[in-house]
């Protein structure tokens, strides 16, 4: 039950009556009339308990887009329902309108359209639906809140998808779909064909030439069906914000671009998000399913404020993949975390797999290193140089273990990682 402002106003106005008729009876009569009005309203208001809610509409929306979710209010009662209805969502769901007026005759249903503009990635669950049914006099209302579950998943925005066409073009150059390769830098044998002027003489297949009258060359194509394992570190270092975006979001973006690219290149891509346990996993997805599966798996991920368990991550990885693959570890080049956690385990990993580490560097460190002028900025510069030196040393150490390291600022990490992958592919090192 809820009271209305009209009742308060009426009580306020009727306060003047005892001034003209000063008696307890006046007061009792005034109160009695108000009480009677409230009782009548409560009795005659549309029945909120006889409502049924149904939902339909979008379940996914890319971050920054809008989703339409409709709520259908069905009135199973015998009275007409005139009410104010609020569909309650968390603030970050960006639900509008805040509340609507509904008028549902008995036995009929009405649709309420909600527009959701999520401001943060992840699942947004509808909390409840609140209906306040006001009586005919407008003095009191019956109010009820009832669950009408619905979840809208705000998917990562994937801003680096604009790089995909360029990278795909480069990939096609490599695979020979557009430009025929002579001596392919890949390692897979493709076919034999006749020699044409300009072909590399080293690619002549003498055995086949001997069998035929023509000179025959071998053609090559980049390997296909290699395995790529993307590993996202969701531990404490992924929570750090570069600009205003957490590292994890940059890593996700890079992982999605690489996933999209590699799946087009015919490679098998798997994904694992790990800190102290598996947070998300995509395995065995087909080429066409991969990107949606990745996006869905990554959408609800949030950084955890715990140290990443490198040993657990490596053992999980080793248990899952037997054959050689490219392990792309998206983490942060944090000296303490890498040296204590990952570095001792690297030989175990590199013995079987090719490992690539991708890290987002902070442009703020570069700004600080360039700062001059007063004492504070010189000390800033010194600290930034020190941080960069640590990072360089760590990178060198990792490269010494045969690990590929991609270290780039947030807006460049995704294309840089894709380039590193294409370079590996071109070099036939996958």
């Amino acid at each position, binding site marked *: 039950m*809820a*009271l209305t*402002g009209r*009742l*308060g106003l009426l*009580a*306020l106005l*009727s306060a003047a*009556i*005892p*001034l003209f*008729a*000063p*008696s307890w009876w*006046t*007061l009792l009569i*005034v109160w009695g009339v108000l009480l009677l009005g409230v009782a009548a309203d409560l009795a005659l208001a549309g029945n909120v308990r006889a409502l049924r809610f149904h939902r339909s509409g979008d379940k996914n929306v890319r*971050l*920054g887009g*809008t989703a339409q979710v409709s709520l259908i209010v069905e009135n199973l009662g015998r009275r007409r329902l005139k009410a*104010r209805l*609020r569909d*309650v969502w*968390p*603030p*970050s769901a960006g639900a509008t309108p805040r509340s609507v007026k509904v008028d549902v005759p008995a036995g009929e249903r009405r649709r309420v359209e909600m527009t959701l*503009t*999520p*401001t943060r990635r992840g699942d947004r669950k509808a*909390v409840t639906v*609140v209906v*306040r049914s006001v009586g005919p006099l407008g003095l009191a209302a019956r*109010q009820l*809140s009832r669950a009408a579950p619905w979840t809208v998943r705000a998917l990562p925005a994937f801003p680096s998808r604009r790089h995909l066409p360029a990278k795909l073009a480069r990939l096609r150059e490599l695979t020979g779909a557009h430009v025929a390769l002579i001596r392919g830098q890949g390692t897979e044998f493709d076919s034999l064909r006749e020699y044409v002027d300009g072909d590399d003489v080293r690619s002549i297949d003498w055995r086949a030439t001997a069998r035929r009258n023509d000179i025959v060359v071998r053609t090559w194509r980049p390997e296909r069906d290699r395995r790529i394992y993307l590993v996202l570190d969701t531990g404490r270092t992924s*929570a*750090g914000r570069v600009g205003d975006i*957490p590292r994890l979001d940059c890593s996700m973006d890079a992982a999605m671009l690489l996933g999209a690219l590699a799946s087009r290149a015919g490679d098998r891509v798997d994904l694992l998000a790990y800190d102290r346990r598996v947070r998300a996993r995509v395995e065995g997805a087909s080429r066409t399913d991969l990107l949606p599966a990745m996006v869905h798996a990554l959408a609800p991920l949030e*950084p955890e*404020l715990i140290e990443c368990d490198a040993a657990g991550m490596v053992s999980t990885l080793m248990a899952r993949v037997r054959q050689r693959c490219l392990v792309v570890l998206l983490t942060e080049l944090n000296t303490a975390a890498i040296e204590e956690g990952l570095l001792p385990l690297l030989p175990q990993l590199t013995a079987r797999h090719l490992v690539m580490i991708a890290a987002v560097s*902070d442009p*703020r*460190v570069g700004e*600080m*290193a360039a700062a*001059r002028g*007063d*004492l*504070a900025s*010189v*000390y*800033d*510069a*010194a*600290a*930034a*140089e*020190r*941080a960069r*030196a640590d990072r*360089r040393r760590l990178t060198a150490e990792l490269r010494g273990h045969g690990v590929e390291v991609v270290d780039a600022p947030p807006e460049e990490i995704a294309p840089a990682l894709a380039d590193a992958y294409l370079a590996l592919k071109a070099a036939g090192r996958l």
Partner: protein
Amino acid sequence: MVTQTPPRSGAGQAGPTGAEPSARQVAGRRWRSARGVVAVILAMVVIAIILAALRPSTSAQALDPESPKQDGSRALAEILRQNGAQVTVARHADDAVEAAGPGTVMVVTRTERLTNEDLILLSNAQADLLLVRPTSFALADLAPRVRKDGPTFEDADEPGCSLQAATLAGAVAFHESETYEVRGGSATECYKTEYGSARVVQVQNGAHTVTVLGSASPLTNRRLTEEGNAALGMNLAGAATGSSVVWLVPDLPESGSGAGQESLTDLLPFGVKLFFLELLVAVVLVALWRSRRLGPVVAEALPVIVRSAETVEGRARLYRAGHARDRASDALRSGARERVVPLLGLPRSRAQDPSAAQEIVTAVARRTTYDETYVGAALYGPEPLDDAGLIALSDVLDDLERQVRQS
């Protein structure tokens, strides 16, 4: 501008205008909405100040027979004493009544300080009363037949009555004076205005005479010498009869004594009480209306905000707090070497190799305007002695790097 950009995240869509209002706009909007209220409050304050300034002020010692000040009445009291009258000064109504016997004239001043009980005491006193500019309450108790008839500022020339005190005094400078009319019965009315109301009224109230004087001016030290003021004052106070005079200048009544026994609730009409009760109920109803939310407050699990460069900034502050010039200069030098060495065509690994120092210094000196000693001191020298030295070092390193880059 707004329409060209496609809608992005929801955070940017604050309102239909899109742009966040500036602090100046917000302040302006608040001022425009509040200026009516401010103007009304200012007007009320100004009116209150004007009213307070216009109010005639009376000092604490006005009409006090012991006060030699302008508005005191010591001069008159002294004259009365010299004429053989016995002047008793009373500060309380009970003292005055005690001192007063039959034939005594009691001068009652500052009646606004008298409580109801004091007035009842005085009305039962044996003495004749001279009321100096009494309040309506005092008038109602002590001279029930006399009513106020409004103030006048005109001068009064002739008494125009048979009252001996007045006829002897002749013209009197009343200045601003209250006037009176008498309802029923006989009375002596003197110094009438052209409308017929009198400045001095003498009535018979039971056994004793009550004289009401509309103005305090004739009795004050300041005005005593004007016209026939002194004569009027002396005659009214009864100097002619040579009897005793009790001059009552009441002190402020103590709180809780006499008047004010009734509480506020006793004074309020019953209807008003009911009105407030009903008002209370209305307020409660309005509070209930406002307090009932349309649905719950939704808690949002917010992400942590950790800036990635925080550790680097923290380290910079630690360096600064500890004056760690050695660490800072090492870091700056190794950073500069790291950038310079590849430009010199040397392997990158030489940058942090102490044994390659001479080689690097020579190569740098060849490509800059500095000599080897200077370059050596810049790239490999000791720690700066003070903070100014550290800043200078950073500038030198920058200059070296720039020159190598441009050569």
